[in-house]
């Protein structure tokens, strides 16, 4: 039978391409007729993008795909081709600079990648070949090679573990560099492989490479002479991933299955999709406006030029004849080239340097987040992490915060609180006597021994000890075999307390520790048998037959063990909702009360059930499980089916309550976020009651908040059809929350301290899917919009019982709603990844549930409390800085180019530049770039402490307030005003160009230089006026830039430059300074240009620290559970003193 199946599968191989066959050690095996070594890629890792040869073309191509770079390239080409007023250098040099800097940066990054690649690829490894160990370079490993890895080495490719030096055929690895989880994971050898790898004759069949780190399906055929080939199933527990490190194991042998770019690590290199910030969108909108200004300027000038030229004698006076070429050109072509020339002349209005400055600001600015010592968590010895610097300013724009509960709002630091066995409650005996008022009313509280039958107790505790996947950390042999424990129940010996457990979920550790408190200690897993020490200090051994793994869909896990007496037992633990339907009803009733009360108190509850399997039952289950595990396709589904089949008609023995403490300062953080006008939504997979109490504890729901519930429970209340009830409730809530609510002004001005009735909204996953995907006959879109409107009018929304994908769905719904609000998701677990990726800003918490959230986030912080500073201080400042940067850049280029435009009216529309080419080029690069860059990095218009204390300040910049059309118009008008002033002020001065005291006259370059000097000083001083935070750096760059301008002008005009065709500026600047009139006009114009700004600053209502702030006093909150509980039990009517 087995044989037939193998043949069947082999036969299928030709057709199926989604599996690969690997010949272990490249030895042909008897099952296949001809040994054809299959082609797989080699083990070379290529993470670099470029080679020396293709770097230039490829990099240039990539860079010019950016629309801005392409635009400047076009301008440059126009300058080269057409006879334009400014030399190609003026736009070519900045473009060249930008392109070069970017290319160098990318080249450097690529070089680093090359270096890392080289290091990895040349790393020596030992490969077993023909019985000998051969040193090879890592890149030469081929699929099928048997590789030797010693302790603390990383695996050079994805290996199937064949042999380990450990006795129990396991090895430990840490995947810290893959997913950040630093705990040791156990991997198993393929069972029953031969000790002598040389004679091992086997093939491995496995799926084609795929990026999921935690999934692997494969099968190994072992051929032995004169025997039926044996088949072993291979799972992720047999696969050693490239990048992981071998620990606690001397040496292993494994066969390479995936190499090089096909390893799971390499497949995970792929970048995330780029997120764009709202500021970037604003920049693009402004760019469009400026492009329109640019084109209309060019059109106006071109038109006027031809109108003017049509007059007699103006087109070609005798003193200024055209060249033959010009005469020969067609009029329309000439018009077109004239248009292009004007475009080129005015193109400085859209500066290349803005992109550079914005990029630099973002890049350098994000260092402040990593440097912030307030984000440093001494516990994990890590600070904040910035994965992308593109979204810094978005942190200041957040309107919706989606937060995970477990691990984010709560610590995910599980503490066993109590258990309930057969309807009787057992609390940790130490604290029993101190327990006060709020404790149980529904069950007697007393010593463990006086409760449910001893058998039941022990069964329950054994269940806790056995039903898990916890490992015992091996600190040393002495500690494990430590001396006997004499205290039975409450007395715990020191070594036990110190014993480290490692588990994927902290709940399990808490439960095992809980069982320890009651006298049952889990000693570890050895040779597939679990050792526990019972209350009598006897060691019991159980053979671990199967582990039915936990998964979020089933929400439970089981183990099948065989005791020494030969009984086969199944222990199952899981969420109440998943256990209750699978046990007898009368048992449920006894325990349900406890479970629900515990849930209301904010504990995580798990129910424990067991089942005795008859040998027949076990045989069926065993076969089913083995079959399912061997399946290559749909293994998950098949396993699931078997699991569901096995885990039936169990008997409930008890329930546990584990407390998950609130994160430090969770309540303050939430309060601050709400005060800042953000709406906080809690998205959790947890039960409604637990989540609700967490919400109260975090003050997301306040005393007066009216809760609108839309859950399965409320839907089933009416006894009618769900859809009808849903419709009714939605309309009802909508009326309450949306229609009857007083109109809200502009969304953000509503203060939470007003007397308005506040609403909290609760929805669960099942109902949500009803709302999101209703049956086709109902008016579906209506539900969604009703739902959304209700949600948007509530101060806090709680979504419980959410699947990960539903979380993302919610985020997406809000993200795409009217006004496209900026969303932020924060979470710590793998189940939050989807919502982190979906939201505008994804924040990962470096929590205990691994590093997946951190890896996929844009920013990662160690604790929830850091979110407050990240948003209120960093986000606020970044936004203000970049908004100012953008506005300032447009402004300074507008008043730079406007005089040049106006000059066209006085030079016969001939595209004569007002400024010298050097000034045109240097203006944005040197003279005015550094002060704004320093400003945009250092400005703190309001002190950080003050920002943190006054969350309401965050509302002032909400909705992209500083980049709306209003402020943009102000800056534009200011630019136009100053541009007009510069040009006409100097023009009136030049009505008599004899400006020197020796009667000599100034020419056109002096004119331009005076305008330019006024310009540089004005825009720099304008920035100085806006600077509220003058550090020495600001002083240095602002005054330094001005000094540099003066120095440069002297220098540039002081030498006859041999490479210049025309010595236009020769001594122009020096002569200008020798004229008193020039000095006077410069001072006058600078002052006059800044006057409106000064006035506005004085007249405008003082902002920031000087604004009147109402401070509300709130009770100091901690993470006290007592507080949280008193809230929930007293029907949420706690009071505070004001």
């Amino acid at each position, binding site marked *: 039978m087995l044989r037939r199946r193998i043949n069947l599968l082999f036969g299928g191989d030709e057709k199926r391409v989604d599996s690969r066959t690997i010949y272990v050690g490249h030895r042909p095996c008897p099952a296949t007729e001809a040994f054809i070594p299959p082609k797989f890629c080699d083990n070379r890792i290529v993470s670099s993008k470029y080679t020396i040869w293709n770097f230039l073309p490829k990099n240039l191509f990539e860079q010019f795909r950016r629309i801005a770079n392409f635009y400047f390239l076009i301008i440059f080409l126009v300058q080269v081709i057409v006879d334009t007023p400014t030399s190609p250098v003026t736009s070519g040099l900045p473009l060249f600079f930008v392109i070069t800097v970017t290319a160098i940066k990318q080249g450097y990054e690529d070089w680093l990648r090359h270096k890392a690649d080289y*290091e990895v690829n040349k790393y020596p490894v030992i490969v077993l070949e023909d019985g000998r160990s051969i040193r090879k370079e890592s890149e030469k490993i081929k699929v099928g090679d048997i590789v030797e890895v010693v302790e603390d080495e990383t695996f050079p490719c994805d290996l199937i573990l064949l042999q380990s030096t450990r006795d129990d055929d396991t090895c430990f690895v840490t995947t810290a560099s893959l997913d950040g989880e630093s705990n040791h994971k156990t991997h198993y050898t393929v069972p029953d492989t031969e000790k002598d790898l040389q004679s091992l004759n086997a093939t491995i069949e496995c799926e084609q490479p795929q990026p999921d780190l935690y999934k692997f399906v494969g099968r190994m055929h072992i051929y032995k002479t004169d025997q039926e080939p044996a088949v072993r199933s291979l799972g992720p527990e047999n696969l050693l991933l490239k990048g992981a490190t071998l620990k606690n194991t001397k040496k292993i042998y494994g066969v390479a299955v995936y190499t090089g770019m096909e390893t799971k690590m390499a497949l995970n290199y792929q970048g995330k999709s780029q997120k764009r910030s709202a500021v970037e969108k604003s920049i693009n909108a402004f760019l469009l406006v400026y492009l329109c200004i640019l084109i209309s300027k060019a059109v106006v000038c071109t038109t006027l030029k031809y109108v003017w030229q049509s007059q007699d004698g103006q087109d070609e006076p005798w003193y200024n004849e055209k060249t033959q070429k010009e005469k020969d050109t067609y009029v329309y072509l000439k018009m077109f080239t004239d248009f292009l020339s004007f475009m080129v002349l005015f193109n400085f209005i859209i500066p290349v340097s803005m992109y550079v400055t914005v990029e630099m600001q973002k890049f350098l600015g994000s260092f402040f987040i990593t440097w912030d010592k307030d984000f440093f968590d001494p516990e994990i010895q890590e600070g904040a992490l910035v994965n992308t610097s593109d979204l810094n300013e978005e942190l200041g724009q957040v309107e919706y915060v989606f937060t995970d509960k477990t691990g984010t709002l709560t610590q995910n630091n599980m503490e066993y609180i109590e258990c309930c066995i057969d309807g009787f409650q057992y609390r940790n005996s130490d604290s029993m006597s101190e327990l006060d008022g709020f404790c149980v009313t529904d069950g007697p509280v007393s010593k463990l021994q006086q409760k449910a039958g001893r058998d039941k107790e022990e069964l329950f505790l054994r269940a806790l000890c056995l039903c898990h996947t916890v490992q015992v950390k091996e600190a040393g042999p002495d500690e494990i075999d430590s001396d006997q424990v004499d205290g039975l129940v409450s007395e715990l010996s020191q070594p036990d307390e110190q014993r480290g457990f490692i588990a994927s979920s902290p709940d399990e550790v808490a439960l095992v520790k809980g069982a320890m408190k009651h006298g049952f200690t889990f000693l570890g897993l050895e040779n597939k048998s679990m050792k526990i020490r019972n209350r009598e200090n006897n060691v019991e051994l159980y053979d671990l037959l199967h582990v039915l793994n936990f998964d979020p869909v089933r929400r439970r896990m089981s183990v099948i063990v065989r005791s020494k007496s030969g009984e086969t037992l199944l222990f199952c633990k899981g969420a109440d909702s998943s256990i209750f339907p699978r046990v007898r009803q009368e048992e449920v009733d006894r325990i349900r009360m406890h479970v629900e009360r515990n849930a209301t108190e904010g504990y995580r509850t798990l129910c424990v059930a067991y089942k005795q399997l008859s040998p027949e039952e076990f045989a069926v289950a065993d076969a089913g499980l083995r079959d399912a595990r061997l399946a290559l396709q749909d293994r998950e589904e098949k396993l699931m089916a078997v699991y569901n089949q096995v885990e039936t008609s169990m008997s409930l023995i008890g329930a546990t309550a584990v407390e998950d403490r609130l994160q430090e300062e969770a309540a303050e953080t939430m309060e601050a976020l709400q005060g800042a006008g953000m709406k906080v939504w809690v998205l959790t997979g947890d039960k409604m009651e637990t989540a609700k109490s967490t919400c109260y504890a975090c003050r997301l729901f306040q005393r007066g908040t009216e809760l609108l519930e839309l859950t399965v429970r409320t839907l089933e209340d009416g006894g009618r059809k769900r859809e009808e009830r849903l419709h009714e409730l939605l309309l009802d809530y909508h009326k309450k929350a949306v229609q009857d609510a007083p109109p809200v002004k502009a969304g953000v001005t509503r203060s939470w301290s007003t007397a308005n009735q506040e609403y909290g909204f609760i929805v669960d996953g099942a109902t949500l899917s009803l709302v999101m995907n209703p049956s086709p006959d109902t008016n579906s879109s209506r539900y969604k919009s009703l739902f959304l409107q209700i949600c948007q009018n509530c101060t806090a929304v709680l979504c419980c019982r959410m699947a990960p994908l539903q979380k993302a769905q919610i985020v997406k719904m809000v993200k795409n709603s009217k006004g496209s609000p900026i969303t932020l998701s924060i979470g710590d677990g793998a189940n939050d990844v989807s919502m982190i990726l979906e939201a505008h800003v994804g924040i990962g918490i470096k929590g205990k549930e691994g590093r997946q959230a951190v890896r996929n986030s844009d920013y990662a912080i160690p604790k929830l409390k850091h979110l407050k500073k990240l948003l209120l201080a960093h986000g606020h400042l970044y936004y203000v800085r970049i908004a100012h940067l953008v506005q300032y850049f447009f402004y300074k280029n507008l008043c730079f180019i406007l005089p040049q435009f106006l000059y066209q009216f006085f030079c016969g529309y001939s595209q004569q530049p007002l400024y010298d080419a050097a000034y045109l080029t240097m203006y944005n690069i040197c003279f005015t770039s550094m002060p704004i860059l320093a400003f945009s990095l250092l400005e703190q218009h309001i002190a950080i402490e003050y920002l943190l204390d006054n969350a309401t300040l965050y509302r002032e910049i909400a909705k992209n307030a500083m980049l709306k059309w209003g402020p943009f118009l102000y800056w534009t008008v200011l630019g136009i005003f100053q541009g007009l002033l510069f040009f006409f002020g100097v023009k009136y001065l030049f009505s008599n160009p004899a400006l020197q005291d020796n009667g000599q006259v100034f*020419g056109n370059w002096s004119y331009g230089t005076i305008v330019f000097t006024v310009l540089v000083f004005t825009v720099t001083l304008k920035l100085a006026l806006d600077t509220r935070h003058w550090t020495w*750096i600001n002083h240095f760059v602002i005054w330094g830039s001005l000094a540099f301008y003066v120095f440069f002008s002297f220098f540039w005009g002081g030498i006859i430059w041999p490479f210049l065709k025309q010595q236009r500026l020769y001594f122009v600047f020096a002569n200008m300074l020798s004229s008193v009139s020039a000095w006077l006009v410069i001072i006058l114009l600078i002052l006059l240009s800044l006057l409106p700004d000064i006035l506005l600053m004085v007249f405008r209502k003082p902002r920031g620290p000087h604004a009147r702030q109402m401070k509300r006093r709130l009770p100091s909150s901690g993470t006290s559970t007592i507080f949280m509980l008193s809230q929930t039990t007293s029907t949420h009517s706690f009071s505070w003193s004001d």
Partner: protein
Amino acid sequence: MASSYSAKEEDGQRAGAPGPAGNANSGKKPDNTAFKQQRLPAWQPILTAGTVLPAFFIIGLIFIPIGIGLFVTSNNIKEFEIDYTGTDSWSPCYNCAQNYSWNSSTPCRCTLPFTLEQPFESNVFMYYGLSNFYQNHRRYVKSRDDSQLNGDLSSLKYPSKECEPYRLNENKPIAPCGAIANSMFNDTLELYYIDPNGTQTLIPLMKKGIAWWTDKHVKFRNPGGSNANLTAVFQVSTKPVNWRNPVYELDSDPENNGFINEDFIVWMRTAALPTFRKLYRIIQKKNNMTPTLPRGNYTLEVVYNYPVNSFEGRKRMILSTISWMGGKNPFLGIAYITVGSVCFFLGVVLLFIHHKYGNRNNSSDIPN
């Protein structure tokens, strides 16, 4: 090994977006420096009515006297302007303007009488002014070869392309090439004082010091050094088409001949606006007793060479004294007085506001 992996991972994730983080920060406590914690000591100026108020008064108090000073100075500058274009038939130069031809060998002369109502006391500067003459036209501005003008011999032989269409004439390079040089102003202006008794005295006009010193001595140089025979040096080239004499015959004085002729240098400094004036001559004060130009009657003798009718231009002769602020220009004085007054006025308004509403502002200044 592990770190190199993680570095790569970072790179892959960011895909071009520069992120500074990653490798550096893990497991390391950030430095507690003022810069990194954004706590650099900083001066935080706050512009309030209280701080700006004195500034306004000070600006007002400084600007108004300066403005008055400028205005008075400008008013004290004597300026006389006479238009000699000859567009009107009654004008003495009408004939010259009408019968103009480039090739006429006999120069056309016209005489314009005028009267100075007031004596010009100090040095008098004589300007010629042109209107509607676009010296700032792009094609015109760039039509020159500065290296040729700097005495570069190769540029003398092969002038820059920018000089087109005034680069070559009959296959000989033009020196000085380009439209600017070609259209050099070539009217000759002479000033005669008519004594009350009727005798005409030629007023001596000085042509030294009308161009920028640096232009004359550095930027413009004759080819072949200062002592070379200009005639020989310029033999390879030909004169600009509109010129009557070649460049080495601009003046008899070798210090003012060729490219370093000051009239030429002044012309080569292109004007900023289509209406401009250029310094032509300086009439130096003789002694302290007599004014440089006493009040009375004068005649301006013009050798009319320069046609402006074709583009509706105007030609003027301007006599002006000069003060420390340059020529006569009331703009600066008026502007200073206006701005000063506005500042002062604003100061008063602010003071009023500050006084009336100041208390409230003050109390809000104190952060709780």
